[in-house]
């Protein structure tokens, strides 16, 4: 799993690439916590290159969401591949997260 972070305006964009499964989830969780510790409160998870997500991965998203809500920050998810989007829809996690079609929409939700 590759993780690339880019500062885009007020938002820190985290590009997740590869598979977010049990083996990777602890690494990603640690990375999220480090990012939050550095004071980033407006985050976009760009999942354009995320091929697979398991329940461990979803739990990492939930942990991030909880931490960010705790500091009144913002977490948005964008560019979900259709198969991943379906997982969110089937399980009802779409109701929990703010999901945008692409990065532009995530950066400017009012457009």
């Amino acid at each position, binding site marked *: 799993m590759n993780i690339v972070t880019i500062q885009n305006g007020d938002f820190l964009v985290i590009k997740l690439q590869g598979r977010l499964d049990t083996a990777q989830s602890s690494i990603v969780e640690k990375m999220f916590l480090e990012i939050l510790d550095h004071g980033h409160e407006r985050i976009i998870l760009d999942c354009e290159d995320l091929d697979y997500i398991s*329940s461990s991965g979803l*739990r990492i998203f939930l942990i991030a969401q*909880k931490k960010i809500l705790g500091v009144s920050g913002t977490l948005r998810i964008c560019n979900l591949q259709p198969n991943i989007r379906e997982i969110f829809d089937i*399980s*009802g996690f779409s109701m929990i997260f703010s999901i945008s079609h692409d990065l532009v929409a995530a950066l400017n939700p009012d457009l």
Partner: protein
Amino acid sequence: MVAIFGFVPVLLFLALLFLLDSFKLVKPRLLVLCLLYGIAATGLSYFFNTWVILSTGISFESLSRYVAPIAEEFLKALVIFYLVAARQVGFMVDAAIYGFAVGTGFALAENTWYYWNLGTDFSALLAIIRGFGTALMHGGTMSICAIFLIEGIQRSSPAWRAGFIGLLAAMLLHSLFNHFWLNPLMQTMLIIVILPLALYLVFMRSTRHLQQWLEVAFSSEVDMLRMIKQGQFRNTRAGQYLASLKEHFAPDVLLDLYCFLSLYLELSIKTKRNLMLKENGFPVILESDIPSKLTEFKQLRKQIGKAGEMALYPLVRMRQRELWELNQLEN
């Protein structure tokens, strides 16, 4: 003031166990039910033990070593057996907490009785021994009984066997405690050290098990439901297996089997999602159509009958945990 030692430790321990339940498996109203039942069980035990002494002339020592452990643990366990039979217990963590709550209720009532009858003779030392030793023993034995029961059922042991082993373990430990082979204070110290450690290890194991179960089952259920929703189920091995059943079932029953599977997957995924939400401190989501889907699921279960459920065994088995899952949505 001295009496506090007799009541507070076991309540604090119960509160600690409740807080350690990271997936919030325990329902507060059932916890209160267990506490109240424990109190009622003390009354029943008191009358039974008194009756045994009066009718047999047995010494108090023999009663406390052999008769009381059997009667008291049996009475305490009844509510645990009921909760398991009603599919209200899914894992070792909730089993242990409900079990401990029954023991807590029992110990609180028993210590109240001692305090009431002994008055000023209820010394600090006695309060400490009863509060830290006897009270934690009552909670611990019922926790162990509940853990054995649920673990046995999860390993596909017959419920009666798992229940018997759990109950036997609780009775033996209780009897061992009442023999006082060690100095009572030493015995109390041992309980203070061993019980939290043992329950902590059980909690760790159960939580790890729950996470593994979530990981494996959630992904496979989402995959299967996705294939069903996309109309590609027949291309999967599971779909081919279901199609192969047409030789054994009428078309309408086959349709019910298909609907049953699809509905089960949908409801099961929602329960797992809610567990993940609870673990992370989010409120659970209960979609407005869940009650009607649960009703439909129960109806389908009746319609396919035992034969239909057995035919679906390779795909889904309606065991303790699966039925517990559906109960989570119902409640």
